[in-house]
């Protein structure tokens, strides 16, 4: 066999595993969704279909996404301006805080807002105490404002990152050139800075819109029964109405709309003005001068502390405090500091082997994350090598295939998996292997986005030098590639771990009653009465929050080859 033939065979073999994985676990579930719609259509007509069940969630998805995005820009743009232009005490810390929400699992966010504005939250408890009320006066939980608030909390970090980065690196000479050409400061901002920022503002807005549109956990947990986005509607069709074909219709509509938004987002986000508009440093930043600037900085700081620090602090604090009665307890409740919610996590109260307590959930979650790490990293590594080794045009098409799970969303994956794999051998016994596979699919785009640039950054002449010195192709990989890729590999593993640990959408479909994950357990405990359940949900949320923050800290601080030091996780998502 000639060398070129052998290398073609090698590439083919390299492709075989990741492509089969994608066909089996991504394409097949999607096809199953399409199939169930059409087969039901032919066997029973349109009996399953109801216009209002499609249009209502579709309209609500658009409505809340539009409102959330507007509010996000309203907070995010001044915040981006604040961080890019002003130096003030604790700037770094506040900025770090404002970027945390993006990486938090939805259950944590839901739990955090529950402890702040919920019926048992700090604000209501305070108001009840102050005015001697017997019922919580503030009831925005289970209503639209709670959803909007959580979405602003989530997506402001997108605006701060994307627009802030652009703003920080805006070449100050351009603004000054405008001054010298007779532009007033206002005119200079309007006719020079703003047009240069518009693509990044548009890109951030579209991305925020996309996330809001596909919002699942937040709407399910913070919105009441009357509020459903398409994803929540899919979930309810499956579990409340058992109407799978209708869920399929909603899923198809959802896919079409999100891909449409993603295409527009790509167009908007890719307008570039060359390097001329970018400066390497940020000479723009200065201490606030004058009353106007100082007021702006102080007001923004207060707003950001309220929005970003309060919910997280509130969650942590509430998980250490007993304030109301546990189920079955009556009379005077001892209020005060407690570790009880944490210690209870590790105790099986009901003495039942069928009862899956918090400890079991933690064990399951860790096991699933571990398997997810292995599957996603192996498949992602093979796929990245295959993409890096094959011809450009082909590799680009395939690369986008591996990005698709990101666009499909976890709820649709969950539905597809439920339709395709809800039988032996996939669900055999007490261990649903399909769950870590679903998590691996969701993590795969992140792995490829991490590994591919790292692989491409290895200079070919290093490999050539090794083979000239007598290393076989496999030996070259082992001696040259792998040591260089170690860091990227660590980042991939961290991505898989944190994604799997916090994943809620697909898990909601696939975890069975006896094998819940931590997010699923939190979701169940939050909705049950009694202080102990509530407290345990908060304790688990706090632990999950700490793990996620630690994971993303780890990711951000391992600088990767093939990239310059800027934060990575956002880049992975936006593809920039």
């Amino acid at each position: 066999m000639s060398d070129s033939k052998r290398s073609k065979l090698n590439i083919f073999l390299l492709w075989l595993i990741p492509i089969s994985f994608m066909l089996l676990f991504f394409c097949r579930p999607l096809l199953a969704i399409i199939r169930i719609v059409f087969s039901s259509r032919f066997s029973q007509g349109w009996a399953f279909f109801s216009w209002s069940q499609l249009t209502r969630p579709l309209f609500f998805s658009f409505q809340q996404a539009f409102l959330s995005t507007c509010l996000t820009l309203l907070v995010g743009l001044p915040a981006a301006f604040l961080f890019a232009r002003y130096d003030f005490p604790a700037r770094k810390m506040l900025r770090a805080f404002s970027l945390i929400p993006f990486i938090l699992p939805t259950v944590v966010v839901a739990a955090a807002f529950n402890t702040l504005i919920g019926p048992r939250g700090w604000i209501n408890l305070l108001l009840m105490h102050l005015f001697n009320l017997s019922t919580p006066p503030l009831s925005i939980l289970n209503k639209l404002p709670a959803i909007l608030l959580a979405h602003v909390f989530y997506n402001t970090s997108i605006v701060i990152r994307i627009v802030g980065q652009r703003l920080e690196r805006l070449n100050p000479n351009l603004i000054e050139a405008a001054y010298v050409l007779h532009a007033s400061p206002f005119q200079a901002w309007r006719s020079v800075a703003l047009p240069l920022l518009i693509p990044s503002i548009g890109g951030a807005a579209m991305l925020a819109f996309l996330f809001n549109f596909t919002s699942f956990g937040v709407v399910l947990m913070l919105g009441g029964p009357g509020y459903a986005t398409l994803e929540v509607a899919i979930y309810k069709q499956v579990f409340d109405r058992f109407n799978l074909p209708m869920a399929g219709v909603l899923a198809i509509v959802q896919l079409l709309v999100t891909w449409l938004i993603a295409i527009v987002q790509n167009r908007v986000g890719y307008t570039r003005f060359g390097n001329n508009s970018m400066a390497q440093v940020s000479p723009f930043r200065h201490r606030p001068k004058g009353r106007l600037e100082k007021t702006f900085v102080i007001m923004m700081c207060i707003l950001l502390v309220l929005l970003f620090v309060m919910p997280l602090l509130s969650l942590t604090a509430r998980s250490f405090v007993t304030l109301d009665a546990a189920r079955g307890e009556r009379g005077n409740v001892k209020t005060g500091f407690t570790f009880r919610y944490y210690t209870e996590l590790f105790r099986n109260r009901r003495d039942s082997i069928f009862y899956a307590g918090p400890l079991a959930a933690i064990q399951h979650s860790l096991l699933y994350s571990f398997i997810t790490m292995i599957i996603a990293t192996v498949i992602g590594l093979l796929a990245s090598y295959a993409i890096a080794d094959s011809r450009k045009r082909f590799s680009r098409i395939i690369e986008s295939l591996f990005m698709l799970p990101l666009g499909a969303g976890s709820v649709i994956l969950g539905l597809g998996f439920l339709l395709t794999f809800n039988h032996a051998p996939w669900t055999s016994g007490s261990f649903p292997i399909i769950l870590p596979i679903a998590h691996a699919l969701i993590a795969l785009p992140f792995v490829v986005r991490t590994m591919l640039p790292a692989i491409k950054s290895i200079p070919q002449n290093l490999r050539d030098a090794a083979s000239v010195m007598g290393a076989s192709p496999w030996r070259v990989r082992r001696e040259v590639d792998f040591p260089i890729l170690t860091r990227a590999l660590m980042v991939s593993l961290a991505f898989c771990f944190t994604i799997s640990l916090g994943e809620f959408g697909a898990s909601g479909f696939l975890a069975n009653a006896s094998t819940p994950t931590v997010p699923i357990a939190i979701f169940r405990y939050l909705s049950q009465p009694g202080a102990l359940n509530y407290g345990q949900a908060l304790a688990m949320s706090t632990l999950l929050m700490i793990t996620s923050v630690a994971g993303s800290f780890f990711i951000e601080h391992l600088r990767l080859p093939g990239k310059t030091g800027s934060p990575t996780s956002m880049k992975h998502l936006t593809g920039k």
Partner: protein
Amino acid sequence: MLRIFDIWKTYEGRQLLAGVSFDVQEGEIVCLLGPSGSGKSTLLRIIAGLEKADAGHVYWGNDDVTDIPAHKRGFGLMFQDYALFPHLTVAKNIAFGLRMKKHDKVDIRRQVKLVLESIHMQDFTDRSVTELSGGEQQRVALARTLVTNPRLLMLDEPMSALDHDLRTSLITDLHTHLRESRKPVIYVTHNRQEAFALADRVLLLREGKILQDATPK
């Protein structure tokens, strides 16, 4: 015409300018020559009104313009990296200053056409400035500065972004343009030959002071 009087400036604890004074007469081309970091660019920025001096004054004739903001001074400055607006075409870059001065559209179009012809770039009207070569960018930047008819023209290392061969061919061009404009010119460079080829007077700036004030030739 322009009189710079006793300008002082410290930046991040370093004495950048220590009592700089000089003046520029009508139609005179003055070169500020000095090594990098000698405070030349900062001095230009102070004259343009983009930065405030710690002490000292800038006079135009008998008027003290020290506290007048940049956009009202009527001085032209060409930046070292040209600072062409990447979101605007060649013609729109040149029209920018006229637009800010609220000239009417017909007049703007006429003037832009004229100035593009004078730099032999009439075919570049609707091109994006990011597609231009270094030499072309320099010409557009100069045209953009000249078209607003500033009373003083300042150029910050206009040749530094160009390679050597291009430099020698462009310098005569630039010289003609500057002469034809009949405006007082301050030209900042660290290149001795460039300074002596262009200037009526060369000011040697070192350690924040003017060490020498001489006419070449």
